[in-house]
């Protein structure tokens, strides 16, 4: 197994990886090769024998060499693994789409197994006709496809009081970005007929936690989706199969999985998930509620503590992700000197509203230590704040909605650490 684990995911692995790279450095680059490379000189088994047939793997998993690119959890965070969270390996992914199989999971009573046949969706409350839909009914409504990020409000939450976790997977991995296909919530609400007094909708899941949330009717009628496909295929069980709610740009807890009921009402419900949890306590002890929209944010995914630089000085791709719940990312700036000088990064493609944007900063590293940061700017002109700016307004107890600028200290060895700077 240890062969398959990428060098660099553990500290011990890192040291052996740098040692190996040090050796390779001599042979590589402008200096030229002293001896011919056996990988080129010798006939390899994969070049002479045969590979797998087309019936070997009806549904594929990543090749074994990538088996370290997986969701991970932090056991001390929660009492058990059923009501818990794991993290997307964003440090090892590129592009913008998150494969479902490694996209973070947060469950409040475990991922349930619910078949399409057993699925029912009810709309009740202040509507002309309370309705029940089967899964097959949903597939007959006009369909849409959109890509959105889903970020847990607690993403980066462990970092409020100080730098804690070493790795972009752990500091920023409660996020994923998928292309959803489904029906708009508006379409279903129109089918039931919302009464004029209807100002809020209540949404709940089929699982034991039910995870009830209140959503203002304006948002419900604007862009929410009742999704049944993600990245082209059925939702995975852990993402709410067969049907989940998509609430673009708003905190992940509202994206109710295994959605079973939508109720229209004239006031919010103030459920546990919108009072006890997902409210932001300020330094003076009062708390913000209804902090639904996710502020603009970015992070350098690599290099970072799990992805040290192992090749020594020279060209290095600094890359990361940026997103905003208020619209599209317009610009991302990167600094390598802790914010003395900033450079505009290259966006892989123009930012899409409420979806992840990939950025690259092509850098030639001189081998001295770097303090890496990225800073996102969205189409409203909002600039991702520093930790100090956020703490000034909110203190350090708000748990949720930490969108501060993240710092990685890349040492001369290429190793990186999560730090805070002045």
């Amino acid at each position, binding site marked *: 197994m240890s062969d398959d684990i990428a060098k660099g995911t553990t500290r011990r692995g890192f040291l052996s990886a740098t040692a190996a790279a040090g050796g390779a450095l001599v042979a590589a680059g402008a200096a030229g090769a002293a001896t011919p490379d056996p990988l080129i000189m010798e006939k390899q088994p994969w070049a002479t024998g045969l590979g797998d047939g087309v019936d070997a793997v009806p549904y594929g998993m990543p090749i074994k060499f990538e088996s370290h690119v997986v969701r991970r959890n932090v056991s001390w965070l929660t*009492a058990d693994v059923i009501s818990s969270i794991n993290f997307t390996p964003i440090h090892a992914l590129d592009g913008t789409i998150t494969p479902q199989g490694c996209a973070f999971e947060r469950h409040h009573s475990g991922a349930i197994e619910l078949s399409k046949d057993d699925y029912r969706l009810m709309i009740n409350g202040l509507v002309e006709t309370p309705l029940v839909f089967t899964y097959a009914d949903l597939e007959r409504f006009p369909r849409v496809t959109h890509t959105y990020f889903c970020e847990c409000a607690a993403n980066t939450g462990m970092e409020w009081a100080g730098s804690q976790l*070493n790795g972009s997977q752990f500091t920023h991995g409660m996020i994923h970005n998928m292309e959803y296909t489904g029906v708009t919530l508006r379409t279903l609400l129109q089918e039931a007929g919302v009464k004029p007094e209807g100002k809020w909708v209540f949404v709940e899941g089929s699982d034991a936690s039910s995870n009830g949330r209140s959503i203002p009717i304006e948002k419900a009628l604007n862009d929410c989706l009742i999704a049944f496909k993600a990245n082209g295929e059925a939702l995975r069980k852990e993402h709410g199969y067969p049907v989940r709610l998509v609430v673009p740009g708003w905190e992940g807890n509202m994206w109710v999985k295994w959605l079973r009921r939508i109720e229209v009402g004239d006031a919010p419900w103030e459920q546990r998930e919108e009072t006890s949890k997902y409210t932001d306590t300020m330094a003076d002890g009062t708390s913000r*509620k209804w902090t639904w929209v996710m502020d603009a944010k970015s992070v350098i995914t690599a290099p970072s*503590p799990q992805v040290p630089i192992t090749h020594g000085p020279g060209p290095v791709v600094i890359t990361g992700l940026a997103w905003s719940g208020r619209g599209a990312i317009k610009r991302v700036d990167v600094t390598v000197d802790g914010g003395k000088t900033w450079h505009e990064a290259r966006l892989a493609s123009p930012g899409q509203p409420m979806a992840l944007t990939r950025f690259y900063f092509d850098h030639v590293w001189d081998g001295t230590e770097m303090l890496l940061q990225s800073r996102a700017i969205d189409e409203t002109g909002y*600039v991702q704040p520093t930790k100090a700016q956020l703490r000034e307004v909110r203190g350090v107890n708000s748990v949720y909605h930490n969108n501060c600028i993240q710092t990685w200290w890349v040492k001369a060895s290429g190793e990186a650490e999560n730090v805070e700077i002045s």
Partner: protein
Amino acid sequence: MSKFRDLVIGTAIASSLLVTPALAEKLGLGRPALPEEVAAWDHDVRPDGLGLPEGSGDVLTGEEVFSEKCAVCHGEFAEGVDNWPKLAGGIGTLDHDDPLKTVGSYWPHLTTAWDYIHRSMPFGNAQSLTPDEVYAIVAYILYSNDLVDEDFVLTRENLATFELPNAGGFFVDDRDTVELPKFSVEPCMTNCKETVEITMRAAVLDVTPFDATDDAAAPAAEPAPAVAAADPELIAAGKKVFKKCASCHKVGEGAKNGTGPLLNGIVGRATASVKGFKYSKAMADAGAGGLVWTEEALAAYLADPKGYLPKNKMSFAGLKKDEERKAVIAYLATFGG
């Protein structure tokens, strides 16, 4: 940058129109929900009390039910066991570092506690409480928070008007006025600061899981093949099933008692025989009466923990599937005493 903002409002509306396909009229899909179906699913309770059913419960009854169904995780006094949520205490700590947020110290509405407990607790056996039990439990949680006396009775009539200490502690998101103007400023690009110091390092705390698998049940990773004829596939399946138990029970070398007793050597072990674990009276009595955890007894207990041994304190709904019970027992059998 402020001209950006005006532009955005324009594009937001334009793009939102595209989000929904234009629908002239209803499609006639789905069917009307029957009133009894709505009643079966619509249990939500609002702060104004809308949705609360008839019923009532007192502190002392609540204490009994809580002790039996909630205390394994939340503690006899709702103070929380290990990492499980604390439901009592913390009043006056909200402006401290690490405030303790509980039903008593933080929650704005008591209706929320009624709603949540009724729909989602006990963890692993949700929707099993009667309305009267929920009223009683909520009364007991108030008592545990020193908010009512021992003779308090909670009813449908007095619940919604009961004022919790932090009822006035919340305000609606004001980021648009407080934060956006501060943060929406064209940022500095060059010569932004003279010096930069590292002020805090994650290595100081070093809490990151570096192991390939950060599995709470790590000691169970390599079961010793104690049973010769054991079916490896069944054992592997059992290891998976055991994840449902692992939050409370540990097995393997170095395993200790947790919320539940350690389970090494459980197959063939006398009931309630682990030293240092505080069993319920029901479980201790069964052990004193000679009950032994044979495979059959385990299968029956795990199928229906409360039915098999009434009043035992394992808050676990049971394993419904025969294969799951067989598998987990086969897995447990690989751990000697």
